[in-house]
């Protein structure tokens, strides 16, 4: 079965908006680069920068609890460590994450967005070598996976519920086109070959787990409104709450939008 890479995204701050990429270089055994590098931790919660342990997503400001996060477009430049935030294209913040002032301005903005009491701000969480994916709670192996979505499965759900769903509700790194709906449910333990047709080498990944969805998917990424009970509709239509898979990178290389995707033979996990 063959498909193509429809789009590539990273989410530099957990819970904040996606950044589209034309291409990305993946390394074996590593997560998507600059993905969930930061998180906005709850100020009175369990996050302790000095004695960090992986925490539940409830300990962070995320779409699950703060739908308005989707209403501000956040763009991070890992080279210069600068964060630009815009509202409907208008700049509202340009912060240098290399300075304490820049980081303070950033959390001040999101304190307003989350409507925290005066003087209370989120904590900008960053831990060397760690990314704040929900998977990171299941150990380093799962933390270093990438997420994939089959767009045909979203379309199948759209048809069943009679509503359009922005694929970005599911916040994956790699979106695939040209496959049968729900083909990915047969992929656990199998290898996928992504790219490589243009001589760029491509990437081999092994699918390790399906993605159980949460109420973050209820928020429309454009309007920032909680409008469709996606998890419940998955449950009612399919008897599961799954959309997408996680895969580990076996051999690194470059991926680009438009690259082909082929699914290897079934093999043991």
């Amino acid at each position: 079965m063959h498909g193509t890479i429809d789009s590539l995204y990273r989410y530099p701050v957990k819970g904040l908006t996606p950044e589209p990429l034309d291409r990305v270089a993946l390394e074996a055994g590593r997560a998507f680069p600059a993905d969930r590098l930061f998180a906005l931790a709850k100020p009175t919660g369990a996050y302790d920068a000095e004695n960090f342990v992986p925490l539940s997503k409830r300990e962070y400001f995320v779409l699950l609890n703060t739908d308005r996060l989707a209403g501000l477009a956040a763009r991070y430049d890992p080279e210069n460590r600068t964060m630009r935030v815009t509202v409907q294209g208008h700049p509202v913040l340009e912060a240098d994450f290399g300075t304490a002032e820049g980081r303070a301005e950033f959390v001040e903005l999101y304190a307003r967005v989350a409507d925290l009491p005066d003087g209370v701000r989120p904590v900008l969480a960053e831990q060397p070598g760690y990314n704040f994916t929900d998977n990171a709670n299941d150990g380093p192996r799962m933390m270093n996976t990438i997420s994939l979505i089959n767009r045909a499965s979203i379309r199948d759900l759209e048809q069943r519920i009679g509503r359009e769903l922005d694929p970005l509700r599911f916040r994956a790194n790699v979106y695939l086109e040209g496959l049968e709906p729900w083909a990915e449910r047969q992929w656990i333990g199998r290898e996928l070959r992504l790219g490589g047709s243009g001589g760029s080498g491509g990437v081999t990944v092994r699918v390790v787990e399906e993605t159980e969805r949460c109420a973050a998917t209820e928020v429309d990424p454009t309007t920032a409104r909680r409008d469709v009970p996606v998890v419940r509709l998955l449950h009612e239509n399919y008897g599961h709450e799954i959309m997408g898979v996680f895969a580990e990178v076996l051999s690194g290389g470059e991926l680009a939008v438009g690259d082909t995707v082929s699914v290897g033979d079934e093999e043991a996990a």
Partner: protein
Amino acid sequence: MSDDETVVVSARRMLTADVCEFELRRADGALFEPAEPGAHITVHTPSGEARSYSLTADVSDRSRRVIAVRRDENGRGGSRSMVDEVHDGDTLVISPARNAFELVEAPSYLLVAAGIGITPIRAMLIELLRRGVTDVRLVYLSRSRDETPYLEEMEEMEEIAELIEPTAAGAERSITLHHRTLHGALDWWPLLETPGERHLYVCGPEPLQNELRALTMHWRPSRVHMEDFAGVSAFGEISLPFEVDWQPTGARIPVTSDQTMLAALEGAGIDVDSSCGSGTCGTCRLRLVEGEADHRDVVLTESERVHFVMPCVSRALSDRLVVAPSAVAPQ
């Protein structure tokens, strides 16, 4: 409804070609209950349809209720019957005033009205000027001068506002009348870029509300006010406030209509493990000690629902629920 009152139309006047103002007084000559700016009444119109209209004059004058009705040619007939059939001296039945658009105390206000949306905003402006608030800005949008209810009054206030000396730096009292056919689209960003301590009140059609909501994502949501269907969840379910008692400590926690029981418990410092937030995974299950739950999850069986509740989606049918961690075996 038993609270409804019979009123007499003591005056009516056309404000524009299709907007009519009605002044209503109680048939028994008594005063109305106090009302707040932003409040509305429901009118039983001659067509048989019940319609809600915002109060639009000085609400501190309890001898009358004033509303303005735009005749909607393509509506179901409620507004048409008001403008075409209700005359001076006629009687109507109206509900008590209810407020879903509360004017909060703030140092600074930006009021935005479009067309007939001026009605509650005018009541707010009158109240704010009476209170002596110095930093108030009104932006009033309409298609043309002819289609602007209260045009002359607003133009007079526009002139008066300019004469008032601002008391604080940056404070201003101003009224901007913006007629789309004359001035084109309004550039909102200069008004919204720096929220400061300002509160924004918007009354207008849904596209305007959506535009301004999108342009104020960097504001505190508690400072952006739009009249909407409060208490109806995104998924069309009615959500009323209730109370939850946390049995281990006896803490009593209010759950507002726009908040989940789980969020209220977490907000009170109670640690409830949770995951999906949509009533499907079962992680946040609590023991239901007392009260009648409105179960909205898809994980609990009918028999489990007697003893357990999922606070991420479920609410209360009774005024109060008493809950406890589910690890404690049900008695």
